């Protein structure tokens, strides 16, 4: 495709003189409301129990996420449509899309505080307690997705909303570590938020959670050293959301007793594990190669796994169009695009994450796909240490090159 600026002037003028084509209409405009409704629904376990009188109904949102959403993705299929580039500035400027993201923030706080309060004040069978923790945790996972979308923007309002969205589940450090750490190191073995071929999700979890926290801490420490501000101060963007978490959790414990802390921790863990799961599947095994000059090649679209499944994209603010996100990190969700011939996941995130919790199934599903995605080139695979030889034998891969030719 030639660049517009490269076209002769007459061509441009002719184009302008043509009658205006039908203005672009975003067919997904109203579908994004699902990104508000679904987080609310998965956190609505207490309401479902109250309305039905049946503790078992608390499992409805869990079944929805892990069974219904993957089925809907299978049935509704993929959407590869893109907005034309000419429509993107108007799409980005349209505040409607922002207001949708803002609307999710209070839901996150309500669901978190509501679930902890309900769990502490009702006698429930163990399975309903589990379902409420999982549901509130899944809602918190949508909160991290929201914090991700907002945290990438470079204006103060959206960055503050990102911190507020991430605070209930104690993951405010994420937007620092993600923007400046993960985006820098993505698809390298050094990145705690990129998984390696042969690494199961539970091993990955032990690398991802502490690694992400350390990286956020170091990045923020370096920034504050440059600005000359004290690390232990309100200028610290890791501490700002952590203080919000401290206040919320303290209020919960003060009002409901120490058992509230147990629920806070469990819900926060399941929420943050949703991020671990997303990180696990988004770059599995893909490697940016080292160039002859010793630098790592730039992140390319083929360094991310994508999914164009309609339904899960509607409820995840297009997070699954991940290659375009890494190519244009500040691009808003409504403008993210599909590209052909990129690594593709076989289902949306919910379905694929569920498979990842069963490592043998995951390897069977994804390892052959990974080998195909890199055209059998082992120099484009990030291997889990100790697993490379066996995997190369199994998939008959060529030895890893020293450097990018």
């Amino acid at each position, binding site marked *: 495709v030639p660049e517009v600026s490269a076209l002769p002037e007459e061509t441009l003028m002719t184009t302008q003189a043509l009658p205006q084509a039908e203005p672009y209409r975003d067919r997904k405009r109203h579908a994004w409301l699902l990104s508000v409704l679904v987080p609310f629904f998965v956190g609505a376990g207490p309401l479902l129990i109250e309305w039905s009188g049946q503790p078992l109904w608390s499992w409805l949102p869990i079944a929805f996420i892990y069974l219904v959403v993957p089925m809907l993705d299978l049935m509704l299929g993929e959407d590869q449509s893109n907005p034309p580039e000419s429509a993107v500035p108007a799409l980005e400027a349209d505040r409607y899309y922002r207001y949708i993201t803002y609307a999710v923030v209070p839901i996150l706080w309500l669901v978190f505080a509501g679930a902890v309060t309900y769990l502490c004040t009702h006698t429930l069978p163990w399975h309903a307690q589990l379902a409420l923790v999982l549901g509130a945790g899944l809602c918190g996972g949508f909160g991290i997705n929201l914090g991700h979308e907002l945290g*990438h923007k*470079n204006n103060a309002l959206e960055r503050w909303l990102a911190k507020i969205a991430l605070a209930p589940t104690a993951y405010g450090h994420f937007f620092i570590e993600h*923007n*400046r*750490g*993960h*985006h*820098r*190191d993505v698809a390298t073995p050094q990145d705690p938020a990129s998984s390696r071929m042969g690494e199961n999700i539970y091993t990955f979890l032990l690398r991802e959670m502490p690694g992400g926290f350390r990286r956020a801490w170091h990045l923020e420490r*370096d*920034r504050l*050293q*440059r*600005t*000359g501000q004290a690390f232990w101060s309100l200028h610290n963007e890791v501490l700002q959301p952590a203080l919000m978490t401290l206040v919320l959790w303290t209020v919960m414990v003060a009002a409901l007793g120490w058992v509230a802390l147990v629920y806070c921790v469990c819900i926060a863990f399941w929420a943050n594990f949703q991020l671990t799961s997303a990180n696990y599947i988004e770059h599995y095994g893909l490697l940016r190669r080292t160039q002859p000059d010793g*630098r790592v090649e*730039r992140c390319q679209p083929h360094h991310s796994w994508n999914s164009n499944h309609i339904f899960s994209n509607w409820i995840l603010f297009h997070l699954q169009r991940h290659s375009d996100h890494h*190519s*244009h*990190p*500040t691009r808003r969700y409504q403008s993210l695009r599909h590209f052909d011939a990129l690594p593709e996941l076989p289902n949306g995130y919910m379905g694929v994450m569920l498979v990842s919790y069963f490592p043998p199934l995951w390897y069977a599903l994804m390892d052959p796909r990974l080998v195909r995605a890199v055209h059998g080139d082992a120099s484009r695979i990030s291997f889990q240490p100790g697993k490379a030889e066996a995997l190369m034998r199994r998939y008959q891969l060529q030895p890893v090159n020293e450097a990018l030719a």
Partner: protein
Amino acid sequence: VSALPAAAAVATWHCELCGFTYDEAKGHTPEGFAPGTRWEDIPEGWGCPDCGQPKADFQPLNGA
């Protein structure tokens, strides 16, 4: 800009990935760079505050 003498110093750099711009005249206080901080005085290990791209991947916006 093109009318400026070729010797005019490059004053604005931008991140090719996300479009973040660093203007030497303005500096960037949140990153600890006072107005007037020259590009060469920015640490090599520094990355784009919006998307983490290394300093080496920035391009000059003017004078190019």
